[in-house]
């Protein structure tokens, strides 16, 4: 059995190639059919579909996905450093941006939770009148 079990390194590599294949296919489909979803998101859906249809086994991509997702914040540092290139605009608009972000986050939380509670209440009302 030990010979049949793939080594961790080989698995990580295979998972990475699968992710790139999905991303490339997704990007091609997005461009070719002029889809509203960006290529990476089409790739995400393709991977999800392949997992549901068992074309790809979870075991083949799980570790690579974990490696990338668990350390994803590291991948955003260069873009975030790029904020220094648009500093004048940030200085001018930071208040509008911050107030909007913070107020909207509160609004979304409350509205979403209320909507969910409302849908749950509806369900109970349907079941109760016996």
């Amino acid at each position, binding site marked *: 059995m030990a010979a049949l079990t793939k080594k961790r390194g080989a698995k990580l590599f295979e998972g990475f190639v699968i992710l*790139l294949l999905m991303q490339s296919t997704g990007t091609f489909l997005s461009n070719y059919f002029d889809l509203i979803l960006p290529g990476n998101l089409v790739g*995400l859906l*393709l991977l999800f579909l392949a997992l549901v249809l068992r074309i790809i086994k979870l075991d083949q991509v799980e570790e690579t996905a974990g490696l990338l997702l668990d350390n994803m*914040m*590291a991948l955003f540092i260069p873009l975030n*450093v790029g904020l220094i290139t648009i500093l004048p605009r940030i200085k001018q608009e930071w208040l509008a*941006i911050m107030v*909007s972000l913070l107020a909207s986050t509160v609004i*979304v939380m409350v509205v979403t939770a209320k909507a969910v509670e409302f849908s749950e209440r509806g369900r109970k009302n349907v079941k109760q009148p016996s």
Partner: protein
Amino acid sequence: MLNSLLREPLIQVTVTLFVYLLTNRLYRRFHFFLFNPLILATLIVIYILHYAKIDYAVYSQGGDMITFLLGPATVALGVPLYKQLPNIRSNLKGISVGVITGSITAIVSTIFIAKALGASRETLLSIAAKSTTMPIALGITGILGGNDKIIVMAVAVTGIFGGVIGAEIMKMAGIKSRIAVGIGIGTASHAGGTSRAIRIGETEGSMSGAAIVLTGLVTALLAPYIVKWLI
């Protein structure tokens, strides 16, 4: 000396990832929100570049190599979505109602408030996707024609804020259902809020997690239309 070293993409990549490694350790030890590794590491890298007199255009040679990995990382979100499937199925109605309502509310309220406060058109396009998880937000912002640096910061701020105040807001709003608390926090503030929802309780955490990728997908489908209509 430092200047010529930091002109090498190899050194740029190494310094960036090493600084992240250190700040991440610091954050894990103290768990204080201002030690958020993305923000702290960014500030340190900016300081180093400034000190070594390196332009962003030079730094981005190495930076782009790191950014490239965001593509496969976005695709990798298919894995948590797949793992959440039983969770999503068992609360399908609540999750669909919450994620769709929340995604629309997020796009509309963000744009509406920023516009009222005088933000420019490009800024509005750059923050519309702020409630979605970072790689998805980046993709959406690309389609909308916004600025990739602003959305990264906006998503980070939203996540940190959601993590810090999520539980209190839910209490103040009188939300009693654990499922509603989880979906509310996850839809509004992606993984940042979810890290806190996990600490409120198991149901809250799993529902918050289930909402993240779905909010990204729904926002990606709706944002182009809503934005066209609002801006």
